[in-house]
């Protein structure tokens, strides 16, 4: 695409939602804006489809001098983000009820979208960080939208973690930027090498890993995900689970020095956490009692798989191309499927005339997720493609394929659980006209979008042998069997959403109480001080008065006596001065 057109297109992709949100400031335009809002992601979608990677736009006046552009990876991310936002927008458009703060929701929706798109399009650190922050903070408004106590708690948790994440990212970016040639105008592309060469490499990587991990659902930073997904409106949940979680992943991809040598240690860490997340997510998710929560934990475990891939990449740089492809494919596949599932929850609420069709439709993304659909096949195939080049990873860690297979078991159990729960609350309310459009769009995409990948030059790896096919199929069957048995036999433990968080929340209160017990509160100390002050002041006043009267008396009455004394004094001094 040509220069001018490209520039306009790129600017539109990021700027259109922003422009809309600004236009909303004009009262007379508000109804029109809120009608356009759901479609705000369309320009980005078109750019992602028809944009050429490598094309950049320089905005020297923006921040320190910003740069927009596309790379193959970001193009895929742009596509999935725009698609999910559009679908969610359509869903929202058909499901929104007039009244409660619809306008506030509209503005925050646009701002979050802007941030989400901007961080994908950004090529320089400043704009990237700006968009990331914009997304984080305006998403808060979407999460607490329905204003219930639970929603506010979710929002609080999300915000605290978000702020911490932002600061961690800032530390990482600052240190990394310092290591680049142009610390004041750093480009994302320069960061990985700079980090690899920096003297605080590990500090930088740790802070970036954790900082983006807050979004990507890293274990122990994941609390906000289940809470937020469960409490926020369906389209928002879809956007969060599908698009925004991938923002964290993108953060990892663009900043961490993945291909650099000598990162085995980090490789192990990522592998470990990834596997832990995978299984823990599955185990905790099974115990949940609401479909959103189940999906949230499944997201956590899926992201765990992705970070396994990252770990593999770090562990063995030679795996780079294969893993890069795998991660991209998996991200696309998981994002679309998860988005479809969430919208599906919304759709399943409606009474429908053709339940069979509904259930088949609902099944598609789930099957894709467990890997029985083309997208799933491709994803899993390219993920397990460790043997692509040399097998040192497999030598070091031979159990890895088995573990991944078990992870697939976990996934399918989660899906089974999801449907079990979904079954319970179907057909509650009347279906709005076309309420299923957005869902349908995503479902279709979740199955077939992978065929677009070559278009962006991303080559996945199809499972070619029967053995590998079987290796994908058997865990699913096992999982289904397990869940059937489990549904008969055992009761789920009541693990609250945001598992470990429940143990952390009382801590501040305890600290305060301890302080009170020791009696170190502000007022007490202040009262004591004021008391002393008052006493000192009173005493001073009395002394002052006495001395004042005394001195007055002396100076007045015996002035002349004083005079004589001084005369004697001065005279003697004079005489002494003379004697010297």
């Amino acid at each position, binding site marked *: 695409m040509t220069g001018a057109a490209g520039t306009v297109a790129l600017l539109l992709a990021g700027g259109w939602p922003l422009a809309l949100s600004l236009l909303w400031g004009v009262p007379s335009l508000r109804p029109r804006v809120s009608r356009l809002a759901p479609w705000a992601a369309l320009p980005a979608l078109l750019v992602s489809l028809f944009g050429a990677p490598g094309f950049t736009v320089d*905005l020297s006046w*923006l921040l320190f001098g910003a740069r927009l552009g596309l790379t193959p990876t970001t193009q895929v991310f742009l596509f999935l983000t725009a698609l999910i936002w559009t679908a969610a927008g359509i869903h929202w458009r058909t499901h929104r009820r007039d009244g409660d703060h619809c306008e506030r929701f509209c503005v925050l929706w646009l701002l979050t979208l802007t941030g989400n798109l901007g961080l994908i399009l950004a090529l320089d650190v400043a704009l990237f960080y700006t968009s990331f922050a914009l997304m984080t*903070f305006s998403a808060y408004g979407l999460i607490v939208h329905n204003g219930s106590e639970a929603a506010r708690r979710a929002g609080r948790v999300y915000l605290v973690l978000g702020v911490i994440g932002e600061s961690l990212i800032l530390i990482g970016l600052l240190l990394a930027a310092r290591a680049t040639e142009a610390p004041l105008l750093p480009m994302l592309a320069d960061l990985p090498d700079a980090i690899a060469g920096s003297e605080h490499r590990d500090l930088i990587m740790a802070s970036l890993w954790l900082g983006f991990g807050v979004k990507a659902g890293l274990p122990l930073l994941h609390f906000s995900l289940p809470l937020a997904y469960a409490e926020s409106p369906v389209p928002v949940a879809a956007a969060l689970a599908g698009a925004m979680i991938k923002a964290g992943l993108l953060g990892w991809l663009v900043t961490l020095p993945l291909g650099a040598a000598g990162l085995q240690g980090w490789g192990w860490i990522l592998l470990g956490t990834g596997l832990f997340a995978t299984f823990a997510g599955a185990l905790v998710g099974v115990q949940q009692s609401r479909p959103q929560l189940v999906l949230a934990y499944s997201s956590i475990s899926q992201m765990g798989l992705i970070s396994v891939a990252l770990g593999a990449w770090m562990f063995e740089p030679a795996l780079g191309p294969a893993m890069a492809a795998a991660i991209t494919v998996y991200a696309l596949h998981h994002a679309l499927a998860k988005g479809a599932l969430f919208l599906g929850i919304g759709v399943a609420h409606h009474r429908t005339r053709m339940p069979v069709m509904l259930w088949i439709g609902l099944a598609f993304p789930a099957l894709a997720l467990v890997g029985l659909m083309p997208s799933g096949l491709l994803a899993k195939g390219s993920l397990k493609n460790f043997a692509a080049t040399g097998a040192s990873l497999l030598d070091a860690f031979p159990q890895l394929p088995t573990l991944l297979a078990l992870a697939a078991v976990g996934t399918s159990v989660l899906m089974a659980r999801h449907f079990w729960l979904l079954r319970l609350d179907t057909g509650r309310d009347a279906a709005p006209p076309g309420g299923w459009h957005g869902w349908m769009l995503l479902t279709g995409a979740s199955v077939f979008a992978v065929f677009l990948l070559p278009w962006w030059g991303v080559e996945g790896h199809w499972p070619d042998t029967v053995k590998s096919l079987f290796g994908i199929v058997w865990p699913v069957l096992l999982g289904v069997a397990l869940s059937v048995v489990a549904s008969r036999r055992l009761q789920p433990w009541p693990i609250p959403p945001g598992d470990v968080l429940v143990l952390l929340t009382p801590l501040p209160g305890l600290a305060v109480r301890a302080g009170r017990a020791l009696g170190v509160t*502000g007022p007490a100390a202040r009262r004591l001080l004021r008391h002393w002050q008052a006493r000192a002041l009173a005493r001073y006043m009395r002394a002052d008065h006495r001395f004042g009267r005394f001195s007055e008396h002396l100076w007045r009455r015996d002035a002349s006596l004083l005079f004589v004394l001084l005369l004697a004094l001065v005279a003697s001094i004079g005489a002494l001065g003379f004697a010297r």
Partner: protein
Amino acid sequence: MDWNSLILFAVLATSLVASAVIFLLAESRVTLRSTINLAAAVLKLLLVLWIIWGVYQNIEYELRFTIIDGVDFILRADALGIMFVGLSSLLWLFTTLYAIGYLEKAPNRSRFFGFFSLCVASTVGIALAGNLFTFLLFYELLTLSTYPLVVHRGTRESLRAGQIYLYYTLGGGALLLFGVVALHVLVGDTEFIPGGSLSGLDPTLYPLLIGIFLMMVIGLGVKAALFPLHAWLPMAMVAPAPVSALLHAVAVVKAGAFGIARVVYDVYGIEFAFSLGLLGPLAVAASITILYGSLRALAQDDLKKRLAFSTISQVSYIILGISLFGPIGTIGGLVHLLHQGLMKITLFFCAGNYAETLGVHKVSELDGAGQRMPATSVAFTLGAFGMIGIPPMAGFISKWYLGIGALEAGMNWVLGVLIVSSLLNAAYFLPILYRIWFRRRERPWCEGKVVGRFETPALLLIPTLATAAFALAAGLFAGMPFSPLYWAQIIVSREYLP
């Protein structure tokens, strides 16, 4: 006395004359007074813009005459000074607008606006001062002209606050005076020269120089509200909102920070100060203040008090930047001088709007203010995000430069201070935003005063939005020519490679 020196005099005179005239006006001449005030403000702004353009082209503006032999009164427009002048004259315009709206039908307006203009005049004088003596002159004048504003309400606690204010500022002024005199005895008239004028002195004097530096920094630190010397600032909150806005954004605290910048850059010279080992302690003091202010702010329920403590911590960002040896840190500090002004004045305007329109003074009463006053609340949100340092607000630019500067200067711990401070900022600003936007108000608002077609009188709303817009633009378009960042870079380029 050529044109270039006359224009400096004119810049000073605009507000001086305005104040003189306003003092003589009768209380009832509202329209005339407002007209004079605004006319003076606009005129000053135009002159300043003219000078900025001139300074940009390296034109020398200087006005000097002898006061005592060996002591000159010098006004000079250099890049650093003119930056401060620009800030003060811009915000003067807005604050005047705001104050006109705010003090409608309030008593003692002649006195108020008279001293208000006088205060701005002294700020401009501080900014344009060409040597320590002139600086001191206007520095004390500022103290005197702000006292009546602090006690303007005339209530018992405002008088008490004024008294505390005087204790601190007069004491500090006296210390500063000693430092200046001692320096004067050592090296004669100390003009502000980029790179400083002391590095040539005999090493046996270094201990003395360090002592003098301490004296002056303590004297200036009182106004800049450095940690142990900050107590007057929260008390001064009893003043009317425009006053606290001006005090916090431009006049008093900035005068202190600006003075420290002058002392470090143009009297001692940053290299020399660094070689004397003065910058490290300064950075430590600034960091302590930053954290202390934020911690105290957490505990305040009174909105203005919370803002005051946040000012204490924010102003120390400037001092921190000054004490970072290296161009980038310097840029960070200087640019924050402007950014903090813009953001903080916005916040105070908003606080004033809430107080005036809804009669709300406490954070805990702000529930649902967002629905009632969306525009004001948007401005407040922008300001708060800027304070936290969330991009693309101006605060982020400062923080980024400070961070990089700290790393350049090899003070990595400063990065920790910055991060912790922005976490604390988030901790005391975000709850406010949460209350404003996401809580519902049960009881109806007790409307403070009748409002026009907007959510609040236009004279209160317009300046608020304008400053908020500036604060946003300063961050968003930092890359543009004549943005604060750009100007700070000019200053630094002239400072570090004279």
